[in-house]
């Protein structure tokens, strides 16, 4: 079996069944699961690149992420037994209160999860205190705050101000996202970064947690 080729077919084809089958085969035949995981990762990054190049669109990218998640879910119990830090880091993500835009945030959450982050997706219209409580509870590495409206973007700032007030700012890296967010806004509110799209967001997340 050509692991890399099969995994690529499963992920780029968005084939959930094949991804699960591959993961189960790896386990039952006692193959090196990390070879599979690396092949999955390579493929999901390729899906991301295809999205950036305009070859893939949202449905294809979501299907690839779903296939990846399906495969990784099967590996997860073994990975967590093997080595706890195989997970890239814990991420708390959500759309800020007052804002119900979900799509970009969900895409970033799916890709982060597919990449190997442990993701806590709080959904949309999430109060600042919920973000902070969850991040503290799971000892998150990253908090990702989405805001699609110029009026709700200020919530990103308020969240960061709240962390500073509670003396918690240094515990987390903070990524902000959403159409109106700019590099300038990142600097103005003291976030750690933003990205043009979901794929770049994942790259940046890896960089911020040094993986």
């Amino acid at each position, binding site marked *: 079996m050509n692991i890399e080729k099969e995994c690529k077919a499963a992920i780029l084809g968005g084939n959930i069944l094949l991804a699960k089958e591959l993961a189960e085969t790896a386990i039952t035949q006692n193959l090196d699961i990390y070879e599979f995981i690396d092949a999955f990762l390579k493929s999901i990054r390729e899906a991301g690149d295809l999205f950036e190049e305009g070859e893939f669109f949202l449905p294809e990218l979501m299907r690839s992420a779903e296939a990846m998640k399906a495969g990784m879910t099967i590996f997860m119990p073994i990975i967590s037994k093997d080595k706890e830090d195989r997970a890239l880091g814990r991420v708390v993500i959500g759309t800020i209160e007052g*804002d119900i835009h979900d799509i970009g945030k969900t895409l970033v959450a799916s890709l982060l999860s597919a990449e190997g982050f442990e993701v806590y997706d709080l959904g949309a219209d999430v109060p600042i205190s919920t973000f902070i409580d969850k991040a503290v509870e799971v000892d998150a590495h990253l908090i990702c705050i989405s805001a699609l409206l110029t009026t709700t973007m200020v919530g990103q700032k308020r969240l960061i101000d709240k962390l500073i007030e509670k003396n918690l700012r240094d515990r987390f890296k903070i990524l902000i996202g959403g159409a109106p967010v700019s590099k300038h806004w990142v600097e103005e509110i003291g976030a750690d970064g933003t990205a043009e799209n979901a794929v770049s967001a994942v790259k940046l997340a890896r960089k911020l947690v040094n993986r």
Partner: protein
Amino acid sequence: MVNKSSILELIDERIIILDGALGSLLISQGLPAGMPPEIWNITNPDNIKRIHKEYFDAGSDVVLTNTFGGSRLKLLAHKQGNSIEEYNKKAVELAREVCSNEGYIAGDIGPSGVFLPPVGQATIEDFEENFAEQSQILSDAEVDLFFIETMVDLKEAETAVKVAKSVSNLPIFASITYQKTKKGYYTIMGDSVEQCVNVLERAGADAIGANCTIGSDDMIDLIPQIKQFTQLPIISKPNAGKPQLIQGETVYQASPKEFADDILQMVKSGSCIVGGCCGSNPEFIKEIKQLGI
């Protein structure tokens, strides 16, 4: 109301000018974060009427009702599902109050906010119910046409057009939101210009086109591509450039003059229904009017 010609007859005679942004103006007038703009039809009717009037005064032939997010699925996300009839009816009344005999009122229908798999869990039946209810209310409130806009999923747009067609004989304008990719113009779901045009035309749209996301400069090249696949009237309703955040304020880069120059290009390449989307205001419509097209 006096007998006036259908908007479709007017299109044969001259260029139709739509209005510009509504949501971004409401925000600048104090619409609180996260509040559905439709609530203001009830609580702040004067703000809505004033904006409609400013657009008519600036030269708009058509204004769109404040019902972009007025469908059940969209309002449910704000726990406002029970108010759908009230919001939509009132929106039409407000526009009617400031509309002259020559003006037209378009019942604005925006996306449901939910998605088909694999992006979400919605079904076509969800879309059908959603748009049937809203278009029926708007039709009963006597809008002059439907304006289905900012659709990023062609299947949702197609459903909205078919459903609107089934509830009334009113003209249907249908507008898609495209992204400019390296490969050309596509919806975020991957629908091409050709697919969008063909599907919407078959579904029964009377005019088709594009709005939102791309600025007027980026929309210039899109219009000839739409033209190549249809004889129907073409709608151009671009944003006022790409939004930039400057010192915490969202600023759209195109000036009214630059915007109107871009619109002129689009008219030359075949668009006959023009207006503005996010970031535009009555000044932009005035500039279009001054083109004398």
